[in-house]
């Protein structure tokens, strides 16, 4: 049974939420506030050895078969954006959470919360794109639910998807497995999804349209696993971006991380938008990227396998885990100096000047 021990202040003792507090938008940001909500409200109530792993998917055995299960809700606004829509995203998000646990995604449920007045042709479009995404991911949507709320009580529609998959024998990937010396591999450029959404929402126009990277990563993962390299854990850096994923792995594995600024790919137009909006791409959401923490001698093989797939063409080693500064992620800047890459409290906020 997994027991949580507390070392060096990496994990701090959860204090109950002050009375009279309310849910803030920041509680859904994937940053420190989200973690607090989990530690103080959800874990004390639901805690069990499987949940306590706090991975993006639960992995458990039934009659000797190793299964993975995950759930995710999608509340993105706008519903349609360059490079995708909420439907495809809802399939990819769940497929990817299963894939990051090493699972082959098999079945999925879909629950719709529809707002009164949503044009049916929009719903049809979203459903078609879900079906297409599910088909290309080899997943069947086998059960579902529909609820309708009054106008003004939902942003058009919200979608929840739950997925289950099979984990091949012998694999155990978890965010508490990273060890000093391990290599950190990133599959491609950061920030495409978050900036595509923000640019559309804020009406920003650039010379080229920034496309969301929304994509299913299970095939990319299959290629990584086929190398039989020693993989410690995998993550798709969605909400909270690369920074949240690395900080979480660092804290759970009690290792520090050093990443190299010059190795982290960010598209020119995404950098431009981030400069304009005062955002840091390390904190911006991705929907078709992954990181893998691997045993050092396996790194080259894994990078090569990733590059052989269209969603991993830009894969590279971006850093190393270390026994120094456990729980802290440090970036070596292009100037040769160092800075912390912290986990944000809530969402990134645009600055005044």
């Amino acid at each position, binding site marked *: 049974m997994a027991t949580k021990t507390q070392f060096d202040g990496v994990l701090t003792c959860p204090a109950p939420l002050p009375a009279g507090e309310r849910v803030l938008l920041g509680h859904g940001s994937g940053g420190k506030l989200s973690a607090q909500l989990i530690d103080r409200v959800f874990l004390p109530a639901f805690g069990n050895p499987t949940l306590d792993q706090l991975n993006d998917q639960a992995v458990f055995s039934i009659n000797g078969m190793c299964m993975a299960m995950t759930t995710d809700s999608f509340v993105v606004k706008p519903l349609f954006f360059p490079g995708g829509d909420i439907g495809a995203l809802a399939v990819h998000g769940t497929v990817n959470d299963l894939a990051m646990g090493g699972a082959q995604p098999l079945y999925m449920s879909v629950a719709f919360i529809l707002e009164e007045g949503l044009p049916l042709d929009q719903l049809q479009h979203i459903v078609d794109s879900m079906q297409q995404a599910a088909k290309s991911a080899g997943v069947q949507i086998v059960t579902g639910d529909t609820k309708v709320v009054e106008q003004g009580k939902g942003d058009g529609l919200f979608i929840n998807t739950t997925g289950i998959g099979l984990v091949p024998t012998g694999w155990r990937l978890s965010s508490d497995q990273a060890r000093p010396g391990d290599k950190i591999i990133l599959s491609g450029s950061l920030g495409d999804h978050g900036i595509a959404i923000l640019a559309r929402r804020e009406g920003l126009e650039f010379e080229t349209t920034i496309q969301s990277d929304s994509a299913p990563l299970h095939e990319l993962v299959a290629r990584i696993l086929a190398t039989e390299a020693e993989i410690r854990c995998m993550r798709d850096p969605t909400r909270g971006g690369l920074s949240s994923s690395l900080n979480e792995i660092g804290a759970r594995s009690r290792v520090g991380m050093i990443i190299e600024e010059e190795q982290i790919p960010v598209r020119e137009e995404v950098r431009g938008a981030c*400069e304009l909006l005062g955002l840091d791409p390390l904190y911006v959401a991705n929907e078709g990227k992954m990181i893998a923490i691997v045993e050092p001698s396996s790194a080259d093989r894994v990078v090569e396998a990733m590059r052989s797939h269209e969603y991993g063409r830009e894969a590279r080693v971006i850093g190393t885990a270390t026994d120094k500064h456990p729980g802290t992620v440090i970036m070596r800047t292009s100037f*040769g*100096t160092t800075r*912390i890459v912290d986990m944000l409290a*809530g969402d990134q*906020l*645009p600055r*005044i*000047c």
Partner: protein
Amino acid sequence: MKYIDEFRDPKIAHRLVQEIARSVTRDWTMMEICGGQTHTLVRYGFEEMLPKQVHLVHGPGCPVCVTPLEVVDKAIALAARPDVIFVSYGDMLRVPGSKKDLFHVKAEGGDVRIVYSPMEALKLARANPEKKIIFFGIGFETTAPPHAMAVLSAHREGLTNLYMLASHVLVPPAIRTLLESPHNRVQAFIAPGHVCTVVGFDQYESLARDYKVPIVVAGFEPLDLLEAIHMLVTQLEAGKYEVGNQYARSVTRYGNIPAQRAVEEIFEVCDRKWRGIGSIPMSGMRINAKYAAYDAERVFGIEDTTVEEPKECIAAEVLMGLKKPLDCPEFGARCKPESPLGAPMVSPEGACSAYYQYKRHLAPVGGH
């Protein structure tokens, strides 16, 4: 990226650092005023690069940080009103007042919106005639012109439901206060490039002359700041005290005259309290009597209150350049960005927050 990468070139940066090292013969303490510059210095790790003789201290130039608690409390009271849509720049929402922040008001049902430009407040005023739209107008001389334009546009259009809670601050009076202090140890200033884009730098010439301190107006990219530091070291070593303009691609001596006219039309200079420092005479701007109908403080008649700052916070010494964030025993212990004790930890651009975000791994072992 064009116009960005040129100013972040590591090779040129190292050459500039070498030139600074060649020029410097003794210890010098210099201060940058603007929070945006603090952010760059800390983020790029200048302290790790520069010769030990160059001491950088960080001034009071984060408008979010220095907005007094009382004003934040007023914003919170206004935002909670059911007839109001409260409009603000994003980073003001997380600034705690004496009890809560604007995010909490939003969670309790207040209509609080984040905008990038005050012109969006005008759009909201047009679209919601039954609501009162209150824009939280804070910032230095940089944000004053767009805020003035928003009021002027509303006036021309005859919009009667747009108001501003204005709490602007001015840089030169703050520099003067620092220099007047008997404890002052700042020997040179990096002046804020965007403020000077608006107001020019002729006001800084009298500061340099009166207090015999060199001042260089600088941009916000790493090479801008390294060049400014080099210009200051050169002046300091030669015993000169002039105003240099490193940011000539944006700043002229007299600044942007039409922008200044708009500001003069709407605002008047007043005394202003700075969070962490206290009241500084003639260091702020408020809406003048002619445009009183747009002034949220006058229209909504919110009472002035006085709120005490936590005693253990050393914000005043940090903002005056007497101490550095890592000198504070509460840094990273009781004082963190999610629970700030004082001004410089409040916004990401505050000096303490910038150190917490990027540099706390350099804090003394055992502390923090």
